[in-house]
């Protein structure tokens, strides 16, 4: 059974480490991907989100359960990212977009995107080990098939097949209805996408 968002918040306030773990499991990847949308640097995003969790635990007693846990965490990460951007002095344009009246809408979009990313991430983690390994090397380390084959000591043909299987499994995992709602949402937001096929 899932714990209620507010109940988790209350229990963390009371010093329940189990509830804290639950919040971490539940939100950590999403928050990292959310930060990554703003910072475009996954490692930096991870350290921002880590700090949010550290502060959350240290200051738990003084926090008010006015908001949901989810909105507290996303807002904290957002603030952490903004501080980071200010610090890096590259914030100007992004900050302008966020201080715009539509700020909340922009933030919601980023949260939605982060959540899709988190779902994809979870689906990748559920792939068979070898399949996942090959897919990650191909997608995130951007290695050539021949480089992957060399590194893992397998044939290029196997690499090709495994990435194909991975993609199919991921597509199956993320249910059709979920994908469609996400797609329609994303396409309404991102008409500037252009595909060169």
């Amino acid at each position: 059974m899932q714990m209620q968002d507010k109940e988790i918040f209350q229990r963390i306030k009371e010093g329940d480490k189990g509830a804290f773990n639950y919040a971490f499991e539940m939100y950590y990847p999403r928050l990292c991907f959310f930060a990554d949308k703003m910072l475009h640097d996954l490692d930096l995003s991870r350290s921002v989100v880590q700090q949010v969790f550290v502060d959350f635990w240290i200051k738990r007693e003084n926090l008010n359960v006015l908001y949901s846990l989810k909105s507290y965490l996303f807002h904290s990460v957002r603030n952490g990212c903004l501080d980071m951007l200010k610090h890096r002095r590259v914030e100007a344009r992004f900050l302008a977009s966020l201080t715009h009246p539509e700020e909340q809408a922009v933030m919601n979009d980023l949260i939605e995107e982060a959540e899709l990313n988190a779902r994809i991430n979870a689906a990748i983690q559920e792939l068979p080990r070898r399949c996942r390994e090959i897919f990650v090397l191909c997608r995130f380390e951007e290695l050539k098939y021949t480089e992957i084959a060399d590194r893992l000591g397998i044939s290029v043909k196997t690499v090709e097949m495994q990435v194909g299987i991975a993609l199919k499994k991921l597509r199956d995992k993320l249910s059709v209805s979920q994908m469609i709602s996400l797609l329609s949402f994303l396409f309404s937001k991102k008409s500037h996408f252009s595909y060169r096929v």
Partner: protein
Amino acid sequence: MHKDPEYIDQLIVSFFSGQISVSEKEELVAWINASAENKEIFEKSKQLWEEGNAYLSSEMIRADREAIDRKIYELSVRRDKKRKLITLTYRVAAAIFIPLALALTWFWGYHSGNSITGSLCEVSAPRGHIAQCVLADGTQVWLNAGTTIKYTPALQGKNREIFLSGEAYFKVTKDEHKPFIVCTSETEIKVLGTSFNVKAYPGESSIEATLEEGRIELLLKRTAKMQAPIELKPGDHAIYSLSDKKVVIESGSDTEQLTAWRDGKFMFRDADLQTIITQLEKLYDVRIHLANENIARLRFRGVFEYEQNIFDALETIQRTTSLTYRINGRDIWIE
């Protein structure tokens, strides 16, 4: 031309990862345009590929979870240190204030003719007897003849402080948050949980501490500068000479001998008569007078039991030496 789904998926991935050949690309385009269904599959795949643009492995997530715990731990340690600094400030204030308060109390008490001991508890073993008591924290204390300890009733406060005059053996209940401190006129002994003996009779030329087990720290009160505490290991016997303000530590000493008094035994190995008579005086509440200095340097070994009376002790001395004794009330002369 291959039409099976696995092959198409391979082409799609090759396309996204930029590893597609010209002919394969033509093949893929043809497939996409063949039906609306194909186009949807392609769009879905593209979405997956583009939106899942960052990846966190379960190992990374676990490592991050640990990093969070580590940072929380470090912060809480730092916070405790800050708290300690605050208590140190209080201590410094107390170090100034308490002696002042005591001095005033003493001054007032002296001039009004009252003796004021505040709210301290007092336990004494009269001359000729040993006593045993258990403190509020479960610590056991044995008091040798002529010993007094004073302490606050429930051992309140940051430390458990005991004021000792005489000789006592402590079996201290462990409490790392509340150090046990034995204060004598010249030293402080800090303990976390251990068994040890402290001898600090007023009028004697030294203060001695013997550690049986555990760890204790000896702090000298009246040194010119702040001095690091002297740490004793089990078996160590520290002797602090009041005349030259120096500490001598004998390691591997016979702790059993030094603490035998608890069992009502007065054990001595190669002790001079002066030492023995000092002990006998405390034990039997008598005054012993030696005819001359040479007698005082005679050396003995043996065991006296507290249950024996002073005559047994004097007889033993008389039997093994050419000395004789004479008793007048509580005064004894040895010649």
